[in-house]
């Protein structure tokens, strides 16, 4: 446990990753899940940059934006179709139509 304190950047990135992951799991609302996702992604980029990644990668931030945009597009279409943001409710309605 020695250098957990001088590695405090990475420790904080991991805690942020955990919080994002918990938000993703606990909330049933689609928008909250997407916010949880982008928090997990920015935590990983913080971890990446804290490692002194010489390339100063700016590309992954673009990947996370495009993924967020795709998820938001799916949410808009789902809302138009099922009129709710609750993912469990949506799956229940989809399954009932299927039966």
């Amino acid at each position: 446990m020695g250098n957990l304190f001088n590695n405090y950047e990475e420790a904080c990135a991991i805690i942020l990753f955990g919080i994002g992951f918990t938000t993703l799991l606990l909330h049933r609302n689609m928008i909250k899940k997407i916010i949880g996702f982008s928090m997990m992604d920015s935590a990983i980029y913080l971890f990446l940059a804290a490692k002194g990644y010489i390339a100063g990668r700016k590309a992954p931030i673009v990947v996370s934006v495009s993924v967020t945009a795709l998820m938001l597009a799916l949410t808009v279409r789902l809302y138009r179709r099922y009129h709710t943001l609750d993912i469990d409710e949506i799956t229940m309605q989809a399954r009932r139509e299927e039966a």
Partner: protein
Amino acid sequence: MQLWQNLPFAMILLPLASASLTSILKGKAARRAALTVITLVTLMAAALVIFMQGYGQSYTFMMGHFPAPWGNEIRAGMLEAVTALCFALVMLFSVMGGLRDIEHDILPDRQNLYFVMCELTTAALMAQVFTNDVFTGYVFLEIMTIAACALISARTKGRTLVAATRYMIMNLVGSGLFLLGLTLLYDLTGHLLMSNIQEKIIALSATGKYQQPLTMVIALVTIGLGIKSALFPFHTWVPDAYSSSTPTSSAILSSLISKGYIFLLIKFYYRVFGLREVVNAQVEDVLLVFGAAGAVIGSVLAIRQLDIRRMIAYSSVAQIGYIYMAIGLGTQSGMTAALFQLMAHAICKSLLFIATGGLCAASGEKRGFTSLRGAAYRNPVAGAAFVVGAFSMIGIPFLSGFVVKLAYAEAAVLWGGPRMITVLAVLAISTMLNAIYFGRTVVTLFRLSEEKIAQQQKWHSGPCFAVACAALSLLTFALGLAADPVLAAIRSGLEMFS
């Protein structure tokens, strides 16, 4: 640097460049452009296999002016060439087989975007097969995830959107963990090239430093890629994703995209960590247990299904469990069996999905077993293709499934002890379960009273469909009868793989 060694570079860049071209073409022209590009890639893959036999050992191709640890690099060997050929063939026949459904289901002005997705999936697959750089693997893994989500949601019906959302949620968690593993790997070794990383890891394990983070890296990479390739406990998104969208998307998703991730995992085990490192990190036993559980439970769930495409989706969960079980053996022969199953299953599963597309089209787009009764008479080509696919999945001799099960048994017997018993038991149980649900489906397709057979109106699925079904069935027979050259190629490929 002979000219033919530029083939892998061309196989990645050609679909990538033509994707932006297809996005501005209209429906018909886009279809022609996509088919010609994928055919070209298949021909290049075949040429590469022929040259590779003469060449004998793997070579690296510098992407740019700077040698290995600084610039990017791709590496081609016998195993990569054979896998690339198999992937390209399956992609070509999946797209050809599902052409009618693409025109029927997807709105006209979005069809060219659908073909853009197919081309970019081909480019990403080739890049993952040939890459020798960890971060390039992540980038093209991301391209495949978004392409797969677009392929699922191409039909924009209610159910496909739910399936696409669940697919994205699970896969993003998977690629997040994978990137976390890569970052740790970069921090421990300072390199991004697979061969350099292995030298550093051997040095690390010699000095015994950073052992706990190293095991953590192997675990993160395995879980990340396991989630993305529908390993057993993370397979909940599979039935919706594979069964709701067009037959081509299901074929591409189930046989190509999950296989690309598994091939990347095998490359990580061989070229980044080294098999010895992975074995003494006890990851192998976990994979064996999950694979075995997946194989049995996947088949049991498949029996319960009333919708034919969900049944095939569950059967592909079982087959992926098979592959992970073979990887879990951790020996050379286990890996050979896993790679052969990877190719045989890719061909067989796309054959099944394309044939089911034809059968459902013949029985009025309904997928329940009751409405599919006698569909084989309405669409004889699809019926014959389905029978070949089903028998190969069961493991009838002279078909690829039989050789797969033979290779598994051989790998298990070589290992001996409790693992042999588990693998052989799982082989027996799941073969019997496969026989039940595939047999039942084949019986349903052909079971119709005589006078009803006469009045069935024939359904013509077009020449492309027939060519695709015939080609995939021939490939299944070829793998069944002439399996030795392919197995020899895989073994020699594995020698020069690490």
